[in-house]
């Protein structure tokens, strides 16, 4: 895989000049490649990972909703996925193998708000046959980043 993608995946805040130094390219070449990846949709966006719990905010709740649906005759799962991902409350939608069809990640300000969203918007959709809502209590790791701080005595006084 292109080293630029690996580097950006790990740290999207690096400048083109820095990535150029790391890969032995020029900054212009890096810029062109990134632009090409953005145009072709390989690079879809740059995400911030915030540990909301650190801010002691109580107005952000996340739930994972397991959705069972009846695929439609012509469009299968695609049209249903499009409908579901259209809601602002929905953070992610994935088609799953196994006991249910879609895994939908939803955020809201309160448990109540999410419950209402499921009851009033998701469940009534044509094709949806059942929903199971599971609330997230604590996040430990997100997108490869460990959120809870760990401490260990990592060679603190070793001169190696």
């Amino acid at each position, binding site marked *: 895989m292109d*080293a630029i993608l690996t*580097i950006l995946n*790990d*740290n999207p*805040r*690096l400048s083109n*000049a*820095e990535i150029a*130094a*790391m*890969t*032995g390219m020029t900054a212009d070449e890096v810029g062109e490649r990134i632009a090409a990846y953005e145009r072709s949709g390989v690079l879809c966006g740059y995400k911030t990972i915030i540990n909301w719990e650190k801010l002691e905010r109580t107005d952000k709740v996340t739930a994972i909703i397991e959705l069972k649906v009846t695929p439609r005759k012509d469009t299968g799962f695609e049209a249903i996925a499009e409908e579901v991902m259209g809601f602002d409350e929905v953070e992610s939608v994935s088609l799953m193998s196994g006991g249910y069809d879609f895994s939908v990640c939803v955020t809201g300000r309160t448990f109540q708000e999410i419950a209402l969203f499921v009851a009033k918007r998701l469940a009534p959709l044509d094709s949806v046959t059942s929903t199971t809502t599971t609330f997230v209590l604590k996040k430990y790791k997100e997108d490869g980043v460990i959120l809870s701080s760990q401490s260990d005595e*990592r*060679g*603190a*006084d*070793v*001169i*190696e």
Partner: protein
Amino acid sequence: MNYDSLLNRTALRIPPSGIRRFFDIAAEMEDVISLSVGEPDFPTPWHVRDVAIDSLQKGRTGYSPNRGFTALCREICGYYSRRFGLDYDFRSEIVVTVGGSEAIDLAIRTLVNPGDEVLVPQPSFVCYDPIARLAGARTVPLVTRREDEFRLTAQALRERITDRTRLLILPFPNNPTGAVMRREHLEEIAAVLRGTDIFVLADEIYSELTYNGQPHVSIASLDGMKERTVVVNGFSKSYAMTGWRLGYALGPAPIIAVMTKVHQYAIMCAPTTSQHAAIEALRNGDEDILKMRDEYDMRRRLIVRGFRELGLDCFEPEGAFYVFPSIAATGLTSEEFCERLLREKHVAVVPGNAFGACGEGFIRVSYAYSTAHINEALRRIGQFLKENNLL
């Protein structure tokens, strides 16, 4: 009791590490961002850990032979043969030790007599001098210079050889400078040593971490050098196994026999869980090494560029995972620089003079950290230089 008059005088006289003070300051601060630790930030590859766990579950918790499990000795000799073209007999020319550190200790204690002189290129890792002193020998520093890319030159070596010279330490790829001795540079050193009674202790612990497409060359692989060289290596840096404490020494059978005797009385054998893990690392770990090296290489380029952008002279290291920029232009000593940087910006780096007096005017910075961590440290160092008008 008056301990000072009762304890071993040589041990008492070994100066305490000058860096202790920095760690004490850093320990009391929050949000310290450290580029001071010289160990990989990767965990040991999973398949290696898995084999160790399996050995524990199966109850393989006893001693090994003094020199190490035969299977491990075979694997290490096979590895040195395929990687560095050096053939050692797994029955008589290897001893497995508690980290490279024990191998260094055994080698020095075996190779020198009281009154002998040990040549130590500096700046270099901090252990050679204390161990040589404990063996009753005297350390003679060989200064390596920025203008020689911190390589040991034949001239510097020749100038310091006396009738009492018994041992040359050759610590390359070098901690803290990142310098590498290529074949042509080693040839010059070998030419000085051939025909003398001087031994070489080649500390090759960073041998897998070389960049710019220059694979490590062991001085033992040069004509006439194997008979006078003890090679020290280990698993800490190449396989990210620092905490497992596993290393080894390779050398002529008569030397290894004496080293193994000392090892037998002092240590018995290296930890056996670690030995099981190391066999797996050598059999199936080549890809792990490459992956980590590529990652270090990118960070190396990032941090060299970073220091140069800040206006500090930074030698481009070809090995290990340290940069050794000069801070002479700031007018501060290495210790002043490091202490003020720590107090004012909460960034921890190591003063160059910790690695020998000639390291004065430099700082050692480890890049075994994430790019985000490196860039945050560089940003704070930039602020530090600017706010104090140091450049």
